[in-house]
């Protein structure tokens, strides 16, 4: 009897999934993993003889397996609950917040980052008011030493030492774990008023009143949500708006969308992309409500997308430059650096992986 049951169950599983593999329609993309899934590879004599077809077919079978997310969730849960691993694919959970291990500190990359900043200053920013601020990633605020954390003190030390001629604006005391989304790497816009105020105070000398209407979107699933594969509830994404933000005109080098918030992105592969339309090399924002001709240039990563709308009040124009998508040596072709403020605003994650920043 036992033998028969084993055989029947085994056959049900392998034939069940075999048939489901054939019957179920393939998915183009996985929102949870924020990526396109592999399609059935094209067959040709050449691709079979050189093995390309087989390699691609292996990827295809993994990507298009029925209930892929459920299986990823089974794996993640077994890693945490059966094998008691502290992380699964470098993702770990602490107090219902999802983190990714950012470790170890890569000192060479940190130095490379400061050299990049020096290069830009030397080549483009003569006579401008230059500031820099470092955004700690959320692992910085983890209280226990259970998980691997990069040596943040060392990172700050190196940068302060190498960029000692620039004005540094401290942000660490204004943030806490609650300033970040539970399921995402980024900070929450609604937690950034004090950050925006300090930046204004240091760079402009005036602090705006920061009066906004709060708008909410839920469920928001951050980038770590899909990677963790544990399911669970989404969270609330709050964004601020007011006349200045609504009337601002956005010129995006890689998009014809001209608003600060791209609401179509909500519920897509990455809802955080609703802030300034996500990744792009250059964005110029014109504040139609301000004619003081004050201009700000921000060298930035994705953290700045949600912060910039809160800095708009005091500037006529803000230009955001993301060196991950445009070479530092080609900036003269697309950005007109004239008098104004410059802010280098980078997260510790990007600084620690500064090879991403193009020469």
């Amino acid at each position: 009897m036992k033998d028969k049951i084993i055989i029947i169950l085994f056959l049900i599983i392998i034939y069940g999934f075999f048939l489901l593999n054939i019957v179920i329609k393939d998915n183009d993309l996985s929102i949870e993993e924020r990526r396109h899934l592999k399609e059935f590879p094209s067959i040709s004599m050449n691709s079979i003889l050189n093995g390309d077809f087989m390699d691609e077919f292996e990827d295809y079978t993994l990507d298009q397996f029925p209930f892929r997310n459920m299986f990823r969730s089974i794996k993640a849960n077994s890693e945490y609950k059966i094998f008691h691993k502290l992380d699964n694919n470098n993702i770990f959970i602490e107090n219902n917040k999802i983190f990714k291990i950012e470790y170890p500190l890569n000192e060479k990359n940190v130095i490379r980052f400061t050299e990049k900043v020096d290069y830009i200053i030397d080549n483009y920013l003569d006579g401008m008011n230059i500031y820099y601020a470092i955004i700690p990633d959320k692992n910085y605020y983890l209280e226990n030493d259970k998980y691997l954390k990069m040596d943040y003190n060392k990172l700050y030390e190196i940068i302060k030492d190498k960029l000692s001629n620039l004005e540094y604006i401290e942000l660490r005391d204004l943030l806490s774990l609650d300033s970040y989304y539970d399921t995402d790497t980024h900070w929450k816009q609604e937690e950034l008023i004090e950050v925006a105020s300090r930046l204004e105070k240091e760079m402009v000398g005036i602090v705006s009143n920061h009066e906004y209407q709060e708008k909410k979107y839920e469920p928001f699933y951050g980038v770590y949500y899909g990677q963790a594969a544990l399911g669970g509830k989404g969270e609330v994404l709050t964004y601020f708006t007011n006349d200045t933000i609504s009337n601002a005109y956005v010129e995006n080098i890689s998009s014809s969308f001209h608003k600060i918030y791209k609401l179509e992105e909500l519920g897509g592969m990455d809802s955080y992309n609703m802030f300034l339309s996500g990744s792009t090399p250059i964005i110029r924002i014109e504040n139609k409500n301000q004619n003081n001709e004050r201009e700000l240039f921000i060298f930035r990563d994705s953290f700045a997308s949600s912060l910039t709308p809160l800095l708009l009040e005091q500037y006529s124009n803000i230009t955001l430059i993301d060196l991950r998508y445009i070479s530092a040596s080609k900036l003269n072709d697309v950005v007109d650096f004239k008098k104004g403020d410059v802010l280098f605003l980078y997260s510790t994650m990007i600084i620690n992986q500064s090879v991403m920043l193009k020469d």
Partner: protein
Amino acid sequence: MLFSSISFLYYFLPILLFCYFIVHNKYKNIVLLIFSLLFYFYGEQIHIWILLLSIIMNYLFGIWLEKSNHKKKILAFSIISNVGILMYFKYINFFITNINTIFHTNIGLLKVIMPIGISFFTFQTLSYVIDVYKGEVKANHHFFDFATYVCLFPQLVAGPIVRYKDIAQELKERKHSISNFSLGISRFIIGLAKKVLIANVIGELSSILLGISNDSILGYWVIAISYTLQIYFDFSGYSDMAIGLGNMFGFHFLENFNYPLWASSITDFWRRWHISLSSWFRDYIYIPLGGNRVSTIKWIRNIFIVWLLTGFWHGAAWNFIIWGLFFALLLLLEKKIWGNFLKKHKIVGHIYTILLVLISFVIFSVNSLNEGIIFMKHLFGFTHLPLLTSEVIYYIRSYGVLLIISMIASTPLLPNIIKILKQKKGIKSMINGLEIIYYVILLLLVTSFLIDSSFNPFLYFRF
């Protein structure tokens, strides 16, 4: 193709089982042959010609050996041909590199790709021609049956080395039963779990620890333990899958592992580790050389020849040769000096064996001799490394449960407990029920790990 892949589990296997069991018995070998060739072609593509050449060559050698009056010459020719192919595809660049080093020449390396499983199928065909020569088995005149033997997919690429005489009868006629099929399924799933849930994850640990910047002595010990557990679960997992698949198709392959990490001496270890390979060397090299029924000097020579070849079989690099010779030395010392002591002091024997096996697998796993020497220095604290670092503590905590599970699973403890419990009537039916659930959970867990991971080849494929 890998057994531990979605393409095998949920495409290849269901189609093969359907085709195999729907045809009449007399066509079953043909079905197995076609699918075995497809299985091999999927991974090796054009290099399948080497396997086909080996099949044709040895099929003809077998028949000639049976009919000819010049058996010795044909045997010599067949051995030279088989070993020649193996030497060319696996060892040619090793020889060229060493010639260049010794004679300061500049001979260019050849662009040779080693076909998967060449060491396994060459040793299988060698055993066939030698056994035919010795008259221990009749030559197979049915080409397709012989071809099925050589390229039978369960053991084609990573063993165990199945001798023709062990399955000659089953190739002609074999019984398929529910109990055998069920036994095959459970054995296959256990092998799959050993590979995917243990070997792959522990392999991840050793890679991480090798890549971290803050080295420590304890870290190197964890790497050595991880190497040993990874190699054991990888290889024995593959053997379990091969034996299980064999059962599903009516074959009975001999066991290849018997809890080797539970051995109480190195002699005992080699009775339990890769049994099909060590018995092959014993029967086809050691005994023909005279075994131990010769003078002491010749016996020592025989031991060293066999273990040099065993090491060399595992890879075309000096660390494998040293790995083999390391065991030769230990086996001699056990035979002549401390073997009896180990027999009397089992606990000392276990500790001694594990320690030496750990060291041996460090030699086995490194990429060069120099790397091995540096590793040993780290291991024994000759490089002023700290005892441990926070990084190592993190990874020990993170992988600790799996390490403990795998250490327990490498001993016969659990099977023995289950065996004892099964003798009690009421508990037996409960255990049977739990076993069914256990296999289903394992299969689904393996599937989930496969889906979440990328392509992960077996370690023993390089042999």
